[in-house]
């Protein structure tokens, strides 16, 4: 019985690993097709003005408030659900586009003699940061909806700006204090020298 239990456990682990690898491979193959994105070179990340305006609109509270004031609760709920789906789709499209750019970069640089591992690792870090940011946003949008998520982002950014301001204000003061302390240390020595 115990043998069977261990055997099953090992098999489950192995099969899930195989399944994960095969699914990942299939997803990689069809990733570019999903949004009709063609292979492009790095540096071409740009959205047309209409898409940019629309993306801003998805997270705007105005529409949501209008629907909430003019229609029933059920319709408002449906509208919010549709907006959440739209926002998530938009985020997925951005992520997919960045993935495509990264893949193009890797394809172009894999055979290059000049490749610098330290720079590549920095790029990976940058990409990881993007994935982390978009992942967190994805989670926040799915849980709170686009309008509240935007408020949360605005609040976080405001807080970050305030913190930066406080740090900037504190740093010169800190330097000044340090300079004063250094001067105080030197004063008696100078005084002694004079006397």
């Amino acid at each position, binding site marked *: 019985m115990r043998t069977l239990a*261990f055997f099953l456990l090992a098999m489950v682990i192995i099969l899930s690993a195989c399944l994960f690898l095969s699914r990942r491979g299939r997803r990689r193959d069809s990733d570019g097709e999903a949004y009709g994105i063609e292979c492009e070179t*790095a540096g071409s990340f740009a959205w047309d003005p209409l898409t940019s305006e629309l993306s801003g609109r998805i997270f705007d509270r105005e529409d949501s408030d209008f629907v909430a004031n003019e229609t029933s609760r059920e319709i408002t709920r449906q509208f919010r659900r549709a907006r959440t789906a739209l926002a998530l789709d938009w985020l997925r499209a951005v992520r997919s586009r960045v993935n495509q*750019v990264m893949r193009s*970069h*890797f394809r172009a*640089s894999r055979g*290059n003699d*000049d490749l610098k591992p330290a720079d590549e690792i920095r790029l990976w870090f940058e990409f990881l940061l993007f994935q982390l940011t978009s992942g967190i946003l994805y989670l926040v949008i799915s849980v709170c909806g686009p309008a509240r998520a935007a408020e949360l982002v605005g609040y976080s950014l405001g807080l970050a700006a305030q913190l930066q301001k406080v740090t900037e204000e504190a740093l010169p003061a800190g330097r000044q204090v340090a300079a004063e302390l250094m001067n105080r240390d030197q004063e008696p020595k100078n005084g002694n020298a004079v006397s």
Partner: protein
Amino acid sequence: MASKVIWLIAIVLEVVPLVRAMEAKFLRNYKFFYSYLGFVFARDLWLLAVYFLWPKLYTYAYWWSEPVGVLMGCWLVWEVYKIALARYPGTARMARNVLAFLFIVASSRIIVKAWNSPTWIPGRTLFEIERDLRSVQLALLIGLVALFTCYVIPLGRNLKGVAYGYALFLGTSVINLTLRDKLGYSFQHSWEYIQPICYLLVLGVWCLALWSYAPIPQPPTEPRLEADYQSLLVSTKETVRSARSYVVKAMRP
């Protein structure tokens, strides 16, 4: 009885890829892999003889031949790296750095354990030592496969089979050895079945993948670097950075 049958099946399955490669004359294309397989085959025959003729010596014979297998496994990983990245010097350079880092990180644990041990042996039991050595190999192989995936390096059926099969072998070995080490003798009976069955699975992968020669496919058109690498890097970095700020900006109320 069942474990002996599994053992015999494994010996047969070890011969199959060797014979196929000899027949189709592609033994030299993966010489370290076939050397490894040849060694494992010879070792199994030797252990079978010891098991039936001198059963008391079997444990010693098994554990003394195991480090050679681990060492030959390292050659196998090196061969995967060498063949797969022969045409991609950029990724090869990246792999050297990443693998060196992984090797230092993974082996430092063993060195620290040996340092702390009064006997200078990195582990309380042979299971623990083998598990640690296999873990280092697994870390290197995972790192290598991650790089292949990241840089979209085509491997071909043969090399993919060698790499994934060996990764499967290492993965199952690490799990089994950990369980054997932690649970002690109570797991021994299960281990006698699980380990060989997992090994049969690995041999099955190798038989299928190396049934015939499949060279590494060449991408039809390699994207040309219009500018130098540095400007490509700057451009990609800028794209990722701007995408991040674009997402955050779009969400700003």
